[in-house]
């Protein structure tokens, strides 16, 4: 199994290397199929692992593989792979989406300026994503964490001729790095106290009490439990960045500047879920307070992003905010202790959100072709206000869109219903039964279900708004509509596969009860025990107990709110009973706030980045124009002034003395010049006189 995992890890890297160094030469010779082939090979290998896992059917299955990497004698870092059921399922998710996206891209990206480069970047992304999934230690996760950041940067900026794309790539990378600082600091705390980065060892050592014994060495004897909370939250900061949680979510909508398949792969299905995956991995050593923080951030993000998605007109922006919102769900689930639900939603979301993005890509692709035909280069191909009535022209895309929208909105028979319901039930149970963590202590725990159900209603609303605006009604721009046609098979087949994977039974087999998530997935994935021994840990028993009680009311409520959202959407956008414009006018401030993303970008730019850059400018000027110019060169200038003074004194006194002696010797010279005859014999005489005088002087 380890060997399989190594192949899965490194094959995509091979694809990257081939495409970067040889890709250009084979661009016209179907070179991209090498990458596609490699990707499907990893898919097959992943499926083999999946089958092996299913045949074992052991929830406690795990496997670890070490390799010493860095050894300083007194300090070492090991790298290695850790494989359990979560790993295998994640590997499959990555492999499925990645291979389908590869296939899809052969059509979508056809004729692109940097076609081979694109496939190379997809390769390195898949490699680093698999690295995150397989990592057995925080340090290794961090390495691949940065590498997915790199590939995300490269792919967002794929069309860097556009300033907006270049900006978005940079923004994504830097925003992620802000989160990474937190993660890195958290790692440092853990490594300092426990002396290891390895997940298993961390949990073990905390359990053994090493943490309680050693934590006092940091921050002047901090309370160990508090430090563990801090460490957990800091590591989670990495997830905040990568999974686009509030307040570091701003990069994800901008990242839609990248090609749409990339958005599907990286910014919807896999990479952004890496944050959630990280939280899954650190779950055993999160304290109650840390989990409360995580839950609150996730819940807030879920509803916050949903409110923004309502008013967006760009089809990809809607989906982007929906992604942020759904990621918030997952994070909230993990924070409330609904471990299985959180991870479940990660998997189901990957399928239907991947499909949604690819389907929107299909629409955009069709729009582009049509705009190209009518030589219109002004119109935005992604703006839903230019679409409408597409269902007749693009039936497959439309069908996929319907299925996946139903899934994301939480409509029974689709996977999203099951996972979302589990999350909502979890938040309900948390609010009702858990008494530890600051949310519970402040009596704010009920905020979480409120966020959750609110977001569920809004999700149903804006997703159907998207469908109605795009596929229903009459065509808003008939001249474009005329040339719209369904995308080719290589694009629609991946769509259909993902749509099938969004059905409920995929995850519940062998059971086929559409309203119960019980099945292979819940059997294989089980909540780990908390390793926290330093203070209040998460009360898993209370929670599990409450989960049963909350299940039915939560399901009922979620169905009701989803139906409400759907109904409102039908009324406004399908039947036009309520005018959207009037509603917007009435809501005024709220509408503008939502439309402008609650001004977060403006806040960052004007509140943080601009002042900071000004500060940098000031530092730069201070350094050269003030510090260097006045202080350092001041030394030089003062030295010059002093030397000028000294020079003056020199002229008058020292030089005067010198000149005086000069005068004397001039006179002497004038006097003595008569003895300089130029005749050698005269000189000889003088020498002899001198010698004689010396003799005489010596004797007397």
């Amino acid at each position, binding site marked *: 199994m380890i060997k399989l995992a190594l192949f899965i890890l490194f094959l995509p890297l091979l694809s990257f290397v081939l495409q970067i160094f040889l890709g250009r030469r084979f661009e016209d010779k179907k070179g991209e199929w090498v990458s596609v082939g490699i990707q499907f090979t990893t898919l097959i290998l992943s499926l083999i692992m999946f089958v092996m896992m299913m045949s074992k059917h052991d929830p406690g299955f795990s496997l670890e593989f070490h390799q010493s*990497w*860095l*050894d*300083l*004698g*007194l*300090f070492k870092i090991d790298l290695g792979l850790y494989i359990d059921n979560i790993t295998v399922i994640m590997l499959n998710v990555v492999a499925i989406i990645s291979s389908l996206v590869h296939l899809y891209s052969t059509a979508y990206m056809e004729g692109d300026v940097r076609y081979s480069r694109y496939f190379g970047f997809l390769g390195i992304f898949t490699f680093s994503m698999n690295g995150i999934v397989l990592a057995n230690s925080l*340090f290794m996760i*961090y*390495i*691949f964490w*940065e*590498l997915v950041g*790199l590939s995300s*940067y490269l792919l967002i*900026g794929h069309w*860097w*001729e*556009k*300033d907006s794309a*270049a*900006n978005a*790539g*940079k923004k994504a*990378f*830097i925003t992620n*790095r*802000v989160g*990474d*600082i937190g993660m*890195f*600091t958290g790692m*440092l*705390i853990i*490594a*300092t106290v426990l002396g290891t980065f390895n997940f298993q060892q961390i949990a073990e050592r905390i359990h053994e009490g090493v943490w309680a014994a050693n934590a006092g*060495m*940091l*921050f002047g004897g901090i309370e160990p439990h508090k430090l563990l909370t801090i460490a957990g939250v800091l590591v989670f900061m990495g997830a905040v960045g990568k999974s686009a949680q509030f307040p570091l979510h701003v990069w994800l909508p901008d990242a839609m500047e990248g090609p749409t398949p990339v958005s599907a792969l990286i910014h919807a299905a896999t990479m952004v879920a890496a944050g959630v995956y990280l939280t899954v991995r650190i779950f055993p050593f999160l304290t109650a307070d840390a989990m409360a923080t995580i839950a609150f951030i996730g819940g807030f993000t879920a509803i916050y992003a949903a409110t923004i998605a309502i008013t967006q007109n760009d089809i990809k922006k809607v989906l982007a905010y929906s992604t942020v919102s759904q990621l918030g769900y997952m994070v909230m689930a993990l924070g409330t202790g609904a471990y299985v639900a959180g991870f479940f939603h990660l998997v189901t979301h990957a399928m239907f959100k991947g499909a949604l993005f690819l389907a929107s890509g299909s629409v955009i692709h069709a729009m582009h072709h049509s705009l190209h035909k009518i030589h219109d280069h002004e119109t935005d191909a992604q703006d839903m206000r230019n679409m409408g009535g597409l269902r007749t022209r693009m039936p497959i895309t439309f069908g996929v869109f319907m299925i996946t929208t139903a899934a994301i909105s939480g409509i029974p028979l689709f996977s999203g219903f099951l996972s979302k319901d589990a999350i909502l039930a979890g938040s309900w149970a948390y609010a009702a039964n858990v008494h530890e963590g600051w949310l519970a202590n402040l009596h704010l725990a009920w905020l979480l279900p409120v966020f959750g159900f609110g977001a569920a209603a809004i999700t149903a609303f804006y997703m159907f708004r998207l469908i109605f605006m795009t596929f229903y009604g009459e065509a808003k721009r008939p001249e474009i509509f005329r040339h719209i046609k369904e995308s080719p098979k290589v694009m629609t087949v991946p769509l259909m596969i993902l749509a099938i994977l969004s059905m409920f039974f995929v995850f519940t087999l062998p059971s086929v009860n559409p309203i119960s998530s019980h099945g292979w997935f819940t059997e294989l994935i089980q909540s780990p025990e908390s390793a926290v021994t330093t203070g209040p840990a998460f009360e898993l028993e209370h929670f599990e107990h409450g989960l049963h009680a909350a299940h039915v009311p939560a399901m009922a409520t979620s169905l009701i709110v989803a139906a409400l959202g759907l109904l409102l959407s039908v009324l406004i956008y399908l039947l036009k009973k309520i005018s959207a414009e009037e509603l917007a006018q009435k809501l005024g401030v709220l509408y503008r706030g939502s439309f402008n993303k609650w001004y977060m970008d403006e806040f960052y730019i004007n509140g943080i980045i601009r002042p900071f*850059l000004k*500060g*940098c*400018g*000031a*530092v*730069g*000027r201070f*350094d*050269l124009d003030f*510090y*260097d110019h006045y202080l*350092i*060169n001041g030394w*030089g200038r003062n030295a010059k002034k002093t030397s000028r003074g000294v020079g003056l004194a020199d002229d008058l006194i020292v030089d005067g003395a010198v000149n005086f002696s000069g005068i004397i010797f001039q006179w002497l010279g004038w006097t003595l010049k008569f003895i300089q005859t130029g005749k050698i014999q005269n000189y000889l005489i003088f020498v002899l006189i001198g010698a004689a005088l010396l003799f005489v002087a010596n004797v007397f």
Partner: protein
Amino acid sequence: MENHLLSIVTFLPIFGALVIALVPKEKLDIIRWGTAAITGLQLILAIWILKVFDFSSADVQLVEHFAWIPDFNIEYFLGIDGLSAPMVLLTALLSFLAVFSSWNIDKAHKGYFALFLLLDAGMMGVFVSLDFFLFYIFWEVMLLPMYFLIGIWGGPQREYAAIKFFLYTLFGSVLLLLGMLALYFISEPHTFNMLILAEQSAEFGKTLLLGMNAGKVIFILLFIGFAIKVPIFPFHTWLPLAHVEAPTAISVILAGVLLKMGTYGFLRISFPVLKDATLWFALPLAILGLINVIYGAMAALAQRDLKKMVAYSSVSHMGFVLLGMAALTPAGMNGAVFQMFNHGTISAMLFMLVGVLYDRAHHRDIEGFGGIAKVVPIYAGVTALAFFAGLGLPGFSGFISEALCFIGAFPVFTWITIFATVGIVLNAGYFLWAYQRVFMGELNSKYENLEEINNRELFALIPLAIVTFFLGVYPTPMLNLMSATLNHLVEAVKTAGMVAGL
């Protein structure tokens, strides 16, 4: 032969400089290729040195030890250990590659290459000498060629830059000289031998000098001397100017090797010889490291001149080195020396790349380009690689050394390290921002016919890229090379601290 490897590797360039000086000045090819051959030979010798070097030992090796001026107990004492071996390799590697960046020097070639070789010898000598007096001589030998190389072959403000560099470093040298003489006269018997001085470490903490603790006074003297070379804030202002005005190859040497001499000096002399004072000064050193990291990065963000930006990035990166070594932990110390090596290779790449662009466009204004990745894709790719290596991306060696510095420093200077991590973001900020403005966006029509990077330039860059990448994936060889010595050093300083009750 093997016993004199270090002498050979040090004096080979001087011999080369003499030979170059005898070649008629019209024979340009002979001068260039001759220099390349000599530095290449030096590189081979440096690799050979690593081959005969015993990785597991913390002692100095390949020792050459003779009395030189016996009346003053001055010795000709060469030797390398795990601290200097990476530096010797770095010097040889960069000297060799920098020759290829010197190809388009446009005047007085003979003088240039002869001085270049002299500089090379000076640098090598600093890293291999174990007698403080000898060390000082090489330290000064390096200074003069540098002055002329900047002052004659530099950019428009070259004379100002050169004189500034010279005065700054000379000021440092004077303090260094004072510190050296103080050590000499306190030690009993009077000696310049660094190993013996290190053994007498405890004495310096007890003796009084000018009514103060001699160890601390000398440490401060040496600190300023070395800090100017590093450069540590507030002694850094010579650096941007000197870098900007120097010709490409000299910038490479300046950033790649010269900056390392400051930190090397700390680890070779200040730390082992003045152990008590080192512990006393560790915290200020870490704070200065933090200031370097943040201040350098902020200043880099503000620059419009690409080369200046890279220069300030050096200030920032050297801050990590200071932080790592101030911590006095195995991870921090190894990280610091590893970072010295990595910064050498990475900043060398950066300066070479800036030089390539400058040769074609004749300016370095970041705002003055735009979209040139379209016309020079290979150049853009190599630059992207170097920039990502510079901002500490995993997979490149810089990441490992920075991470080690942080890991090492965290238990000791927790808050300082936390603040220093902000440097990671800032580094990403200025590199990516600069990259975007130069390479991305609409193509600036002025540069439609920009020439792609040529094979000679690639030849100088690719070895560095390979080294950076290889050590990023598999750092063990380099870390093995130095860990024995550095762990020993950390142990020695810590033990001294315990004895002194600190």
